[in-house]
């Protein structure tokens, strides 16, 4: 399997094959033979060239977040074929949700407003704190689905951006 990935500004070409319990991972032409075990949760134990690594690998938002102790490395997938497949499935407006229940404290945008990526749209209070929910991409606000003071469930739709 060929994978195109990016770490920071660096583009990386990866090839992965499995040989029974071992993985052969080629990174930019350099080969690593890895005995990899997925343990509980997102923990991986990796043995390669006599070295033992234990890392946590979480996948979210098209990227693998690899952590150990205080360090984190984000490996972003850039496979063009994959982008095209997933891109075709997810056209249309962006629906901004809150993933946890709470109370809407403030609504920062109105229908028709232009928003930029990362701009705050709604402030939800949860865990005794106020949290600003932001737009994932730039666009125009199609509709605002909540009002200040309203309680929202996890997964509730807040704002639609077109």
């Amino acid at each position, binding site marked *: 399997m060929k994978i195109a990935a990016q770490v920071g500004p660096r583009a990386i070409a*990866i090839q992965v094959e499995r040989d029974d319990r071992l993985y052969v991972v080629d990174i930019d032409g350099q080969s690593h033979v890895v005995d990899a075990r997925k343990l509980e949760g997102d923990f*991986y134990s990796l043995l390669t060239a006599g070295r033992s690594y234990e890392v946590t690998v979480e996948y979210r938002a098209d990227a693998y977040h690899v952590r150990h102790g205080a360090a984190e490395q984000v490996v972003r997938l850039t496979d063009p074929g994959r982008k095209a497949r997933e891109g075709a499935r997810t056209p249309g407006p962006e629906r901004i949700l809150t993933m946890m229940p709470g109370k809407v404290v403030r609504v920062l945008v109105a229908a028709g407003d232009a928003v930029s990526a990362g701009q705050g749209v709604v402030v939800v209070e949860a865990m005794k704190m106020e949290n600003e929910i932001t737009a994932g991409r730039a666009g125009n606000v199609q509709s605002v689905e909540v009002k200040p003071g309203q309680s929202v469930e996890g997964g509730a739709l807040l704002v639609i951006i077109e």
Partner: protein
Amino acid sequence: MKPIAKVLVANRGEIAVRIIRACHEMGIRSVAVYSDADRDALHVRFAHEAYPLGPPEPAASYLNVERIIDVARSCGAQAIHPGYGFLAENARFARACGDAGLTFIGPSPEVLEAVGDKVRARATMIAAGVPVIPGTPPLPADPAAAAARAAEIGYPVLIKAAAGGGGKGMRVARNERELPSLLAQARGEARSAFGDPTLFLEKLIVRPRHIEVQVLADAHGSCLALGERECSIQRRHQKLIEESPSPAVDAATRAHLQELAVRTVRAVGYVNAGTVEFLRDADGRFYFIEVNARLQVEHAVTEMVTGIDLVRSMIEIAGGGSVPVRQEDVELRGHAVECRIVAEDPARNFLPSPGTIRGLRTPSGPGIRYDDGTYAGWTVPVYYDPMIAKLVAWGRSRGESISRMARALDELRIDGLTTSVPLHRKVMACEAFVRGDLHTGFLEQHPELLVPAADPWLDDIAVVAAAIAHFRRMEARSAAGGETATTAARSAWRWGGHTGWRG
């Protein structure tokens, strides 16, 4: 007084588990209470008995005085331990317990009122000769008279608007020369912001350290001071890392602080466990801030260095017993440090990060104590405080406890949530922290600690790990007969991106 054979724990999370453990060690039956959001919580599973309180909102559950008293009476508990937060310093609750024939495990309602009123507590401490942050009454309009007041309390001084708030009308004057013009500016700002130009002065505490003394007093006249804790590493004015003893306190200073703390609690007739909080300025002077009339989150570091079980002592004292040792037998051994593990993202202004714990490995080994209320598979509710665990390390020296803490943080894995673990790990390696150069603005001064670090070790293996994880995911996906649905829904929440994916 009825002997205490059954205790209701009016709290949740790690502190409820901590109190239940003490009860079980004492042969006391434990009673948990829980909100609808906490049916699956660990404290409910640990207790001998458990009763529902109602809806998740604290006002309807853990703050519901009438319901909690009803449960305690109907289940036959003799006493209630309030933990910290919620009803712990609520005089009305303590009084309602007494009226219902229940023992409140904590100070009397009268003491809670006396120390809970900040203005009254300050006046009591001034009368008892305990130093408070120097301040003035409202200033006269004459600048020369104001300068005389400023000289009395010492520079730098903070100029504050009497009607103030939100920083309006506030100025820092570093010397007598700049005082008059700053007073004029502040007066003008106060007049336009509040319609009242009245100002007063307070001594500005430069690079303050937060240092507090644990006390334990019984109803027979004994009052122990159990050393100090330093809690200067804070975010949003809430403590994040605590230790005992403080690197800024020597034996003579400790004796002085302990004497001040005992004088403070004796001034209000305090019985049971409490904490007297002080600020230490850059010149080593201490100022009383307040009394915390409850068990503190950070009580564990004191337990590690004194060997005294504070929760057990609280229950014994509430039942009419005595403090466990004499003051001269209190021995502070070694050093302990505590990290509060919170479900927050330090890199994003400590944004709360509740969610489901997918994988958990807790640290252990020499000198390590891990107090929590979590388990793998448990979902952290959004209704309550984001603190999910306390990791405590003990060592013969401060250096040893810090190296043990660093090692334990490397062992601790909490999957599924963003937590403060990486921040704690970086603080343990931070030269200023190791040197003991602490103050309450430490994290603002070291913003590099808030973001994940680069690590050559991880750089070597991260791409390999990600590639293998991706390969396995694709393999599982084709084995399942095609691609699983993903969602176009996105939000800034860090867990927003992996909706529907469970690896």
